């Protein structure tokens, strides 16, 4: 099996607070991997370490065969073009309209003429099910629309690996389904590797090819959706049954 990202014995601390205590995880190329776990287990921190936005205290992160933890800042900047990231609140630039947001990576990293950029922006917005909103400012959009614009921006440069930070949090059930389908469709149409951080058990089991559950700074279980449905792992069982009784301590 080919891996897009591999991390070995990843440790991360903020001051004396240990977030990760040795994470080993391999992300299969061309598949959708969900990272789940209770709040505060460092899922977003893990995501940021996978793409080099944060460096681990100890351990290695291998992206396409290269250790990104020893890269120079310039190499790291170049490496990041491999990634598209959808942030939790979409992180749209609020001083720019939708068109400028989606066109931003194209303007920064390509020398395409304006009409080509226009066409790509329109196509990406169509892909996420939005049209005729190019002139709107992010503050005029609903949460679901912002996430979709964020996704259009993230896939503008056609990244090899797409990272989603809690894409369905704060959305209504219908919008959740729309975003789930988007993740699935983006994956199918572009054939990219996707990593999704989520609390949403239903979408996880529906879409994930592989799932990793984090708790107390470690991966407690890694496997397919089927493995997770049939496992006896007490952490997973408690998390899936949404019960406060079990080994997971409430923080």
């Amino acid at each position, binding site marked *: 099996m080919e891996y897009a990202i591999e991390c070995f014995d990843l440790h991360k601390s903020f001051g004396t607070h240990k977030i990760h205590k040795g994470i080993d995880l391999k992300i299969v190329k061309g598949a959708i991997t969900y990272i789940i776990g209770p709040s505060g287990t460092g899922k977003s921190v893990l995501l*940021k370490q996978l*793409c080099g*936005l944060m460096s681990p205290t100890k351990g290695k992160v291998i992206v396409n065969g290269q250790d990104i933890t020893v890269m120079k800042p310039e190499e790291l*900047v*170049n490496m*990041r*073009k491999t*990634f598209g*990231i959808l*942030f*939790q*609140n979409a*992180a*749209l*630039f*609020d*001083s720019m309209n939708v068109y400028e947001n989606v066109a*931003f*990576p194209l303007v*920064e*990293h390509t020398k395409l003429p304006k009409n080509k950029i226009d066409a790509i922006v329109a196509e990406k917005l169509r892909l996420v099910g939005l049209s005729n909103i190019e002139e709107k400012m992010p503050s005029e959009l609903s949460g679901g629309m912002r996430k979709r614009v964020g996704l259009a*921006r993230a896939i503008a*440069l056609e990244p090899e690996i797409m990272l989603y930070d809690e894409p369905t949090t704060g959305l209504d059930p219908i919008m959740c389904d729309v975003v789930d389908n988007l993740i699935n469709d983006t994956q199918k149409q572009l054939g990219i590797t996707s990593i999704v951080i989520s609390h949403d058990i239903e979408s996880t089991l529906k879409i994930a090819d592989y799932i990793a559950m984090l708790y107390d700074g470690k991966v407690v279980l890694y496997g397919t959706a089927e493995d997770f449905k049939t496992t006896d792992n007490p952490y997973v069982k408690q998390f899936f049954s949404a019960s406060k009784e079990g080994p997971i301590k409430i923080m």
Partner: protein
Amino acid sequence: MEKVLSFFGRPLVNIVEVAGHMALLFYSTIKLVFKKPFRTKLLLKQIEFIGANSMSVIILTGSFTGMVFAFQSYIGFHKFGADQLVGTVVALAMARELGPVLSAIMVAARAGSAITAEIGTMKVTEQVDALNAMAVDPVHYLFVPRILAGLIVMPMLNAVTVFFGIVGGYLVSIKVLGINKTLYLDYMYTYIDFEDFANGMIKSVVFGGVVTLVGCYKGFMTRGGAEGVGRATTESVVMACVLILIFDYILTAFMF
């Protein structure tokens, strides 16, 4: 003993740390100024924001300072019968000291705070991470246009402040205090040199750098939501004003 050491030591360590961090950021900003792509549009936008939009505040500050200064110095000079020297003193003080310092403090309050609030908000809403994620260096994208604009615009604002200060002083002296116009101007031309204006210009370039660098740095270091942005903005104005006064002393001592 340990307590005493930590009481005095901790703030000292903090100051050294912040100073070092800011110096490094300034160094990397200057290095990045010459790196492509040149973001002319962003630079012009910042020049408009820091410069053109500060104009009304700067004109008011300059004129009123000049007017007040004419009144105050008249009290002293009148006692010696040297009324005609009021113009010289107003022009000298405006050009060497009040112009650069007051314009910089006004810009710190108006534009420096806005820079911190904008970058701080971008930081806490992950927009800075988004820049990084899209392989765009935030220092290159956010710092360079702002700091460059500060360095370019501040001397111009200083010139406007000094000009309106001198005009304000002149109007009060001639129209209100009734000082002889010919003598007033004659003394002013005789005793004011180009060097006086040049000194003020050098100061204002440094202050322009200080205000925008502090604004960017404080914004970039913002943590913790809306409250964090508020705190960073206040700290940015206070720090910029204090640094302006400290650098003013250092520069004055060097150029004395």
